Structure formats: C-alpha cells, structure tokens
C-alpha cells in the first residue's frame, strides 16, 4: 500500500470538488446530471469511492483530519448536485401555457330532474327521523285508491280526484295514499315511511296542471302517536327544507285523515306581510296532513284502538316550480336539454 501524505490527499479532494462542481454546473439536463452523479458520487465506481479507499493509505495520525476534509467535500458536492437538480426540474415539467385563461377541457355534466331533486331532499331529511322509502303500483284497484281510504261511495269528495280508468275496477292512482294501505297490510307497526311516486288525474295539461305528477306521502303509525307528533315532525321538516321558517296549520278535509290539516310556511318573499306570490296571505301552502282516519287502519287490518298515526302528502312539482321560478309546469315535462342542463352541478 503506497503511503499518501495529507497534502497529497488534500489536493486529491480539492481537485475532486472542483471537477465535480464544474461537471454539475455544466450539466444541462436531468440525464447529464444523473451521469455526473454516477461519475462522482456513484457507490459502485464513483470518484468518491476511489478517494475514500485512499484514506487507508494515510498516516494514522492524519486520518481524522483527512476524514473531516473528505466529508465536507462530499457534502458540498451533494448539496451542489441537489441544487442543480432543483434548477433543472422545471425544465423537465416541460410545458408552458401561452394563455392559461383558455377554458378547461370539460365533460358533459349530468343532472337529476328538479322534481327528483326535491324528492331526494325530502327523503334525506325524513331519513334523519327514521323514515324508510316505500313504493307501490301506479295502476290500482278502486278499493285501494278510494275504498280503503274511507272515500264515501258516490260522494262529491271523489270530484276532487278526477280519475283515469283502465277498466271497471282498474284505475291510475290519483294519489300515493293507496301505498298507505299496502304498507299497513304488509308490515306491523311501528311504521315510518315516505312514499314518493307518480300519480294521475284527468286534468288538462296547461300552465298549472299536469295529468301525471309526482307526490310524496308520509305515514307514521305506532302506539301513542298524537297530533303533536304530526305538527312537530312537519315543522321540523319545514325548517330543514325551507330554512328556519314559521309554520301554520289550518283545518282541511281528506277522507283518509281526521283531524285534517293543511300546513303553510311563511312566504319566503314577503316574510308574512303579504305579496303577490302568497296572494296577500303571507303564507304559502305546502302540504296536506292529518291523523290517520281509524277507518283506514281498520280496513287495512290494523287495530285502530291500539294504534294511531299521522300522514301527509306533498307535491314536489309545485315546490320545484316555486324554488326555481319556473312559470309553466309543462316545462318540467318537455325535457328540453337546455332546461335540464340548468340543473347540472
């Protein structure tokens, strides 16, 4: 082993540091920088390795000083390497945008129908209160649509439901309430369901009527249900759906509920002082509701002495018209893509 003086070693290290530094500065791409790294710092064949091997040739007394010298040089070269790497990196990313304000490349955006959006929002709110979703057929027997729901036979109450018939006993349901009977027949209380679905009436298709429209029904049946549950739950719903608002309950009539009540919320436009939107009343009619009529429970085979319940029905189409300011209900049915696209998010 040829002895090496500290002076010679120092010269070696300094020439390494100079050469490596020049090579690093001269590297103009990631590739040439990587080649430089291999040449000077490579573990297998690099200069660094060669120099470190020479440490053994030094006098024992000089080795500690030489080691420090060697380490400092290594760190300096590594730091230079790192900084050059950083300097070359943006060039690697490679693209420059002539005009970053040009539009993004977008995909088509989809949208749920505004009426579906209202239904989904209702379901979401009622889910928080433990409701599940029940469905039923659109073609019904007149018993399910009327008889089981305590409609008096051949009575003016039927005039409120101008009906489309398929045969003597088969009709298109005029409301989602037949699903109340089906649910009560199918399950034991407690029952807490929301029933969305399409219903059909023999109404002319004009700016404010459609022969087919969506309805959302709610039904709760259990022991100890009172009018307080109806008011509290529907008020909670109104607050969640419309933002904090005031509700008002007023007498109404549905054959299948008693007492029956319409629920209004404070007019969002005038906040109750009266305007053209609320026809000067200060209130907007939202839904019909009531305690489930004992005759409905009886006809579905539920003990009306043991169980009580409440129900409501709402038209999400009207709500959609109001919340989006749509002037004509037929727009909801036309399916013009320019209309539907407005609801894409």
């Amino acid at each position: 082993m040829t002895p090496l003086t500290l002076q010679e070693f120092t010269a070696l290290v300094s020439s390494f540091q100079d050469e490596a530094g020049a090579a690093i500065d001269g590297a103009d791409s990631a590739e040439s920088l990587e080649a430089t790294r291999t040449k000077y710092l490579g573990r297998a064949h690099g200069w660094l390795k060669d120099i470190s091997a020479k440490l053994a040739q030094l006098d024992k007394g000089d080795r500690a000083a030489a080691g420090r010298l060697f380490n400092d040089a290594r760190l300096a070269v590594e730091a230079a390497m790192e900084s050059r790497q950083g300097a070359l990196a943006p060039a690697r990313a490679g693209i420059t945008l002539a005009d970053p304000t040009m539009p993004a490349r977008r995909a088509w955006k989809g949208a749920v129908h505004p009426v579906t959006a209202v239904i989904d929002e209702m379901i979401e709110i009622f889910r928080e209160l433990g409701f599940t979703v029940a469905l039923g057929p659109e073609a019904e027997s007149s018993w399910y649509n009327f008889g089981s729901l305590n409609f008096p036979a051949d009575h003016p109450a039927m005039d409120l439901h101008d009906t489309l018939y398929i045969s003597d006993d088969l009709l298109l349901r005029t409301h989602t309430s037949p699903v109340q009977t089906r649910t009560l027949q199918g399950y034991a209380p407690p029952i807490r369901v929301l029933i969305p679905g399409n219903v059909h009436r023999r109404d002319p298709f004009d700016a404010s009527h459609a022969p087919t429209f969506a309805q959302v029904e709610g039904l709760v049946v259990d022991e100890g249900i009172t009018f307080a549950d109806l008011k509290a739950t529907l008020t909670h719903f109104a607050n969640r759906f419309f933002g904090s608002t005031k509700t008002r309950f007023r007498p109404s009539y549905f054959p299948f509920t008693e007492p029956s009540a319409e629920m209004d919320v404070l007019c969002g436009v005038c906040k109750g002082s009266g305007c053209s939107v609320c026809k000067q009343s200060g209130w907007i009619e939202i839904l019909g509701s009531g305690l489930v009529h004992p005759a409905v429970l009886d006809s579905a085979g539920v003990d009306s002495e043991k169980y009580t319940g409440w129900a409501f029905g709402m038209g999400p189409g009207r709500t959609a018209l109001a919340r989006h300011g749509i002037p004509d209900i037929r727009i909801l049915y036309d399916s013009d893509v320019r209309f539907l696209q407005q609801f894409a998010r």
Partner: protein
Amino acid sequence: MNISHEWLKAFVPHALSAEQLRDLLTAHVATVEGFERTRTELSAFVVGQVVESEKIPETRLSFNKVDDGSGSLLEVVCGAPNVTVGAKYPFARSGTTMPGGLLIEKRKIRGFTSNGMLCSPRELGLGDDHDGILELTTDAATGTPLLDVLPLSDTRLVVDVLPNRPDLLSHQGFAREVSALTNTPVAVPAELGAIPLPPTAVIGAREAKAGAIAVRLADTADCPRYCAVVVRGVKVGPSPDWLRARVESVGGRSINNVVDATNYVLHGLGQPVHAFDLAKLGGSTINVRRARPGESLVTLDGVDRTLDGSVLVIADADRPVALAGIMGGKASEVTESTTDVLLEVAAFSAKVVRGGRRLVGLNTDASYRYERGIDDVAVPRIAAVAAGLLASVSGGTVEHMVVVGDMPAPRPPVSLRVARVGRLLGDVVNGAETRALLESIGFGVTGGSETFTVTAPSWRHDIARDVDLIEEVARLRGYDRLPDTLTGARPGNVPDHPMHTVSSRVRAALTALGLLEIRPLPYVAASGSDANVLVRVRNPLGEDEPFLRRRLADTLARRAEYNLTRMQGDVRIFEIGTAFIPEGSGLREEMRVGALVMGARRPAHFTEPVPPAYDAWDAKALGEAITIAAWPGARVSLAAGTAGDLWTVTVDGTVVGRVYQAALDAPIWASPAFGIEITLGDMPATPVAARGAHNYADRAGAAGGAHVRYRSLPSTPAAEFDLAFVVPDSIGAAQVESALRTAGGDLLESVVVFDEYRGDKVPPGTRSLAWRLTFRHPERTLREKEIEGRRAQLLKSLKEELGIVVRAG
C-alpha cells in the same frame, strides 16, 4: 263560496275587521283564499260641499264653488236641479275615472271653468237614480273619502269550502261558526225580521192539497220533504236597493225581485229555492217522480235535455217542469208577466241529484248544495221565510203552504270518550272544554265525565264517529293551540323498497356520466298493430295519446324529437319510470331505466372543435354502466342483439334489456341516436318482506350487493407482451379473449384488446385484433423462459381451438 263581510254581520253582529275575519275563519273553519274589497272603483271620490252656486243663464246649468277639503275652492259646472248651497255631495276631482270609464278633466263649459264633478247615484253605479246629485247627510269633513261616509264598502271573502262541510255554503253557516268563535249570539238579519209568518201549512206524508195546488211524492227516498208555497199578486220588477246590494255583494247579478229573493235564501240560508210561474203549471199539480223514458225538458239555459229514469223531475199533471235540485224548465220560468208564483223549497236525495247532474252535465248552485247535503229539518221554516221575503219585495200575498214528506229521523248520537280526545290531540283538552266547544256550534252533549253522548245538529252531515267530534274540538280550540313537541320514535319495520334503492344507484351513475334526467308524461300514441300490446286508458285526456307506454324508448324518442325541432342535436337524456305491460285483463308494471344519446360526446373545446358523436360503443358502455349500477357484483354480459337491437343485456344469464339504434323522425343534420332500456324489476303490489319481519338481513352493506373482497396488492413485477391475431369475421373478439384466458392459466392477470385493423394487409373477411396480456406471479419475478413458454402455449391453443394464427410482420 263567496261571503260578504257586511251580510255576515247581519247574521252575527261581530266586531271583527275583514282581515281578522279572514284569519279567524282560516284558522278554525275553512280557508279564505281570496279577499277583495268591493266598490274600490269609488275609492277616489270624496265628500264635497257647495259653498257658492249661481245659475248660468239660458241653461239648466249652475256654476258652483266647491270645497273638496284641499284648501282652495274649486269651480264646478253642474247640470243637476238640486244643487243646494251648504249641502254635501259625492265629488270627483279632475283626474278621477268614473265607474262608467269616463275620465273627469278640467274643461270649459259655456265659458265657465269646470274642475271636477258632483255625482248622481247613477253616475256612481249606485242605482238608476239620475234625477239629481246624491245629497249626503253626514258630519264628515270635506275631503273625506266617500267610502268612509256611505255604507257601501264591503269585503268579499272567497272561502274554500270542502265537501264535508255543506253547512258552510251560506252566510248563516259561517255565522254559526263566527258566533261560537267570538262568543257573539247569532241574530236574525234586519231585512228578514219584518217578514210576517205565512199561514199554517197543510201537511201530508206522500201527498197534500191546499187551495188550488196539490203535491205528490213518488218516493220519499228520492225526495224526503217538499214544501210548496203559493204567493199571489206579485209584481215582477227591480229589487229594492238592499236586496240588490246583497246579491251583488257575493258577486251575483241582480235579475228581478223574484229571482233575487230566491238567491238571497240560497246564499243567506244555504237552501236552494225554485220559483215556478203557477199559471204555467198544468193542473196546478206538483209530482216529484223519476223521469219516464222518452221524456225531455228544455231547461232555463235553453237546452233541450233528454231524460231517463235516473233523473228525478218535478212534473205538473202532464210533463216535467224542472230537473229536481238541478235546474228549472224554461216553460214555467217566472217572467215579467207572472203574477202568481209557486215557490219550491225541498230536500232531495244527494245521490239522485248527483246522478242526474252527471247525466245532464249541469253543475248548478242548487245541485252543488244538494249533492253535499242540506238541512232537511229546516226546510219548512226556510220555505216560510222565502215566501215571506218574496211577498215583501214583490208586493204579493202568501196564500198556501203545503209540506209533504217525512219528518227527518233524529240523528243517531255518537259516543265520545274524553280520554280518546287526549290520546289523539295530546293531553291538553279536558272534558269540560270538549263539551263547551261542541255545544258552541250546536251539538247536544249529554252524559258523564268519561263518555259523552253527542248529537249533531241537523245541518251537519259529517259526524258519524268519535274522531269526527275530535276534529271539531281540535279546530275550534285551534290547531295552533295544540302541542307540537318532537319526541323520539321507535324505528320502523318497513325496509326500503328495493326498487327505490336500485333506481337511486342507477340515477347517480347516469348523472355522473353526464346524462340529464327527464320526467315526461307516460302517454303514447299507437302505431299500427301496437294498439294490441298497449294498455289503453278508457277515458283518456285526448284521443291523440290514449295509451300507456309499454317501452320507455317511445317516450325518449318523442322527447329527443322535441329537442331536434328546437335545433338541439346534442341529446343525452334518461328516465327511470314505469312501463305498462298488458297481462290478462289487467296489466303488469315494470320499473325501467331508459336512456338516449345522440350528438356530441363531450362539449366542444378549442383543442377539439368538433367532438366525436356518441356511437354504438358509448351506448354499450352506458348499457354496462346501468346494469352494473343496478346489480353490483353480478355477471353482466352484452351479447349480439336480436330483432334489430345492437346488444341484448343479460345479468347472471337473465335478459334484462337491450341497446339499440333509435329510429327518430329526425332532420338530416341530426347524428344517429342510440338507446338503452333496462328493466330494473317488477313493481310488485305485495310487500317486499313478510308481515312483521325486517328485511334487512339480505341487504347488509350500503349498496345492497355482496361486499367486495379485498385482494392484496402485487409486490412482484408484471410481464407484458402483445399478440396480434388474424381473426375471421365469424369469430367474435369475446370468443378469442375467452380462449386466451383459458390458455393463459392462473398467472394471466389481464387481457385487453387494444387495436383493430381491417384492410389490404390482411385477407378479406378477416381483421387483425391485437391484445395486450399481463402475467404476474404472486411471489416472484417471472423468468424470461416461463413467459416465452406461455406465449408459445397461447399460440398453440388458439390455433387448435379457433384456427387463428398470429399476424405476420
């Protein structure tokens, strides 16, 4: 139902403003939907006082100085003979529009300035009096609005009376409610107070005769009670002002004193009254019977109506003279020349009036009330009032009154448990309050502290069981004075309907793919033989689309065409809805999802000014996406379609739908349209779980499918190579792929077809298909040799099995 604030006051002298009345009725009785002040056309008129007046020579005119409260005197020319200095008159300032439409302006008359107008009653629309201007007897200061001085102002409330409350179809009916709610006793209106009672009635069970007239009832089921009153010596003419005002206050038109008197009873007391010209009733006889086959009647509206046995008629000795409870006949109508009137006040069966009304298609104020139910006990009393009223306004004399029929049977009492009231309304209403509230609206309440026996008054037809009484208690107390505490609830027993869960997933998938949801009408027209396989609505809205759709594709096609007619060629819509399939005498409902795409696959961008149009492969992808969303984890396959479809979609071997090219009535610029229709399931009428059972067990997991099993991520490198085969057109890519998978063995990770070439570099009838195959060993790196071996094995297998070889070069 229109209610006049002033008229109601005559029945119950309450002190409520119209606004207070509106709020009270809405909260406790029935919803007041409209609210309009009457005579608003007079709101600009003020009280004016004539301060100076001088005749204009050689005319009927006077030149006056009028104080209108403005501080300066106005010069006014007036043509009336009764101008008196110091007197007050209705005054129209210039700028005021008269009820007749004339605009009052400052102008010169005979050289005199006229700056306003003093008004006669006729000019104000207050009657026919035009003999002079209307002198006001008032202490009010000049300039006071005229409506504050004259008792003309009224408010009309439009109330939505629902079918269960026919007792509210009159002012008297609302008066009862207001009386109870304000604790004000009801009153007899002043205009009825002066009417002398008619002579005692002649009463019969089925028939009765008094003086010249005889009444006979064929069936008291159709007509339980009939009162006929003869008023002789009437002079048909204009009504007195007060009667005219009443009729007009509810939006009616004054006709003559006889008709107005009957309308007063209709709107005031809720009882339909019909007036016959007695001279035109053959044999002075009233027969209440069903119409005979072949009979007809020309009704008051001039229409000749053919009748049958379902219609109840009033007949004289020979023929029908009125449709009972619906409309009178033209021949027996009261006219200017009528002198003797027969007034009919009767109770008819709701059912028979409803049947008759439907047959002839006439909905009248009378039929509306009869169908809902009138107060049959009150019939004779109201007959007396009606006759007295008619006599007093027409100068006639009440002669005879005949009452035929049965005294209505007393109402069966309803028993009411006080505890049940609390159970339904929350425990806030006690027995004493319950009793007081019911009694306040005329219910009879007897019995002990736990159970009441309640009898409804004769005008209420909606009280059959305890809950009907509880509703009365609730509304009279006020819904807003019932508790509304939100309390915890037991979880329900009903699982989500699987069709809801599935359709929600599909909707989310399709909107994420950029599609737009539609909710169209389900009606379609039929083309050709289609009619046999479609469900028809028996009474459709229009004969152009009388069928319910069997396929969503039809609806989607019409909606796409609608867009094309509006120059919208980029259509990407879907619907989740019901298809109606005839089955036996009924039908089956399927919940389906349908989608239709055409035009640009994505929005135009500066890097791609004309984006590619949707093609069949996009449609195939949508078909897969829908199916995978609907049946997560199931084996989905799209095989070559039949009957014109591009693909038939199967899930675990069951056909669920199709992908097709849609045939549209499209302009030439339109791109081809592609459709997908997948049946998600039947809409069963039956429950989705056994009664009383939860159905959550088989749907653990949010998506409703099996949970995905985790596979550990690879830690070894993969080996890839490509294979291009010359594949005859007779062999499907899926077939080759399946053979590759079989031959590739366990270590074959993926097989992807990445290129297709057709052209002169391959033999005709074939194409070159290239696959990329990825192999991986779970524990170690695959050796070169192993990969080579697999490659050779694959080539051998495909040659043997399908006879296809690697493409040369």
